[in-house]
């Protein structure tokens, strides 16, 4: 009799457990980003009209994106390995949030550098840290180059190469 009860107890437990697992999975999926949100997670930027030393701010996944055609006369920044070559020109593309506490630095074209008003951090025209507190360079988002355009959100071969070299952040 007791064996029989134990057995039914286990069957009931397994049955209810399966249902609970299914419900948990459904609950997890309900909280996932919606397909429309994911589809909007890609931003295409046309770089053919970009002018040298002018900062363009785009938006990708709700974050500001800095796009800068790096001026040739800034030799140090121009030779930086983090730059992205599109159609023969070198671009600096990064998430425009200071790596210290997430403020948005401003670009000073005459000095070729970014200065953060919050805590005084500075970055050069390739996003490298010139002055603390930021602990690391401005972060390069996943990108892929398509002709004269760059698609953000998709990791292309150029991005993977940068990532392997540890240069994206």
């Amino acid at each position, binding site marked *: 009799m007791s064996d029989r009860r134990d057995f039914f107890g286990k069957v009931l437990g397994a049955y209810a457990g399966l249902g609970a697992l299914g419900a948990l999975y459904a609950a997890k999926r309900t*909280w996932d980003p919606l397909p429309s949100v994911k589809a909007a997670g890609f931003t295409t930027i046309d770089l053919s009209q970009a002018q040298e030393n002018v900062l363009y701010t785009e*938006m990708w996944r709700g974050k500001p994106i800095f796009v800068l055609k790096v001026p040739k006369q800034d030799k140090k920044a121009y030779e930086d390995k983090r730059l992205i070559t599109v159609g023969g020109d070198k671009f600096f593309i990064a998430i425009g949030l200071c790596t210290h*506490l997430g403020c948005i630095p401003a670009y000073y074209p005459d000095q070729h550098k970014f200065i953060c008003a919050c805590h005084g951090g500075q970055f050069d025209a390739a996003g490298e840290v010139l002055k603390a507190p930021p602990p690391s360079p401005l972060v390069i988002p996943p990108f892929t180059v398509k002709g004269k355009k760059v698609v953000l959100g998709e990791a292309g071969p150029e991005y993977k190469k940068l990532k392997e070299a540890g240069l994206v952040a």
Partner: protein
Amino acid sequence: MAHFDPNARPFSHQWLNDRLAVDTLKRVLSTEYWIPKNINFLWAMGMVLAATFGVLLISGIFLLMYYIPDTKQAFDSVNYTIMSEVGYGWLWRHMHGVAASVVFLIIYIHMFTGIYYGSYKRGRELIWLSGMLLFVSFSAEAFSGYMLPWGQMSYWAGMVITNLFSLGSLDFQGLVEWIRGDYVPGQAFLGRFFMLHVLLMPLVIMALIVLHFGTLRLPHVNNKDGEEIDFEAEAEKWKAGKRKEAKVIPFNPVFLSKDTFVLGVYFIFYFYLVFYHFEFAMDPVNFDPADPLKTPPHIYPEWYFLWSYEILRPFPKDPGLIAFGFAQVIFFLLPFLDRSPNVAPANRRGIFKFWFWILLVDMIVLTVMGKVPPIGIYTTIGTVAAWVFIILWVLLPFITKAEKPVRGHK
């Protein structure tokens, strides 16, 4: 089978007793639930908290009728519709905001009363643990509520706090995006935090309040001397009419009338804040609508989270997160880290006396340092205070293990 008197008139006393045992319920839950006489006004903080929760619930119901959980409309539904169109909408909002802030002040007083008198030991461990669960739930409730006006502080606090779940170098970006339902806080985020704030967390809190009361029923509340009272014997004295001799009073009506007096004083203080100083609970930065492309220069949490925020701040990323996690869970372990059997006021417990007062002062210092910008001497003070907090908890088992029995105790 139960006996039902066929002659009892519907809804008469006996009719209800037969069906609902109202007399037994009243006896067990109020008229014969015994409270020691040897207490002070700090023992009223539980009822003050329950009443404040009631105020939050009622003011929240009125706010809920006009609030719109939509990223484009939320800000105006609070700052325009509720504040200037709805009759007395400003009252509900200020009551809700001030109560949300004051409730943490009372929670901290309630917690430190428990720590001071050792009310987490000798059968009272579950009272402490269920109380800590309530503290965590109130924190989640406060945070989710803070998101709803969708101002600059809502948005950026939401950004920073959800970012903590990437767990530093573990870089769990997927988990962060799952919690937000988006890459940054957006509609999905506002919708789910609205749900948490108005339904799930209140349900959890109400269930925990019932549990918290339940854990009190058998061990009873502590008293000013940590004396072990034979509640049954003392109750017999009271019931026999020897009310002066008995060390206890019934919860209802005797203790409750004292509670009600403290509540009266408390509500004068509370409504003074609501009518004349509500601005302390209303951060000016949050009166700018959320802007994903503009970070406020200085992001800080509400005052009641500042101490744990300050423990996160002075350290590098990963150790900071570990220290923050430590601060969140360590209070739960208090009944097990305190190795002394003494249930007595901290001032009679040797080194523990210093431990208690240093902890209290340290948490006040952390709170103040969390508010000022992290520069110069403030960084140093904050770092020292964070280390003092950690060291205090590491020392606690050793201090209490070596503690001598307090006079009058075994």
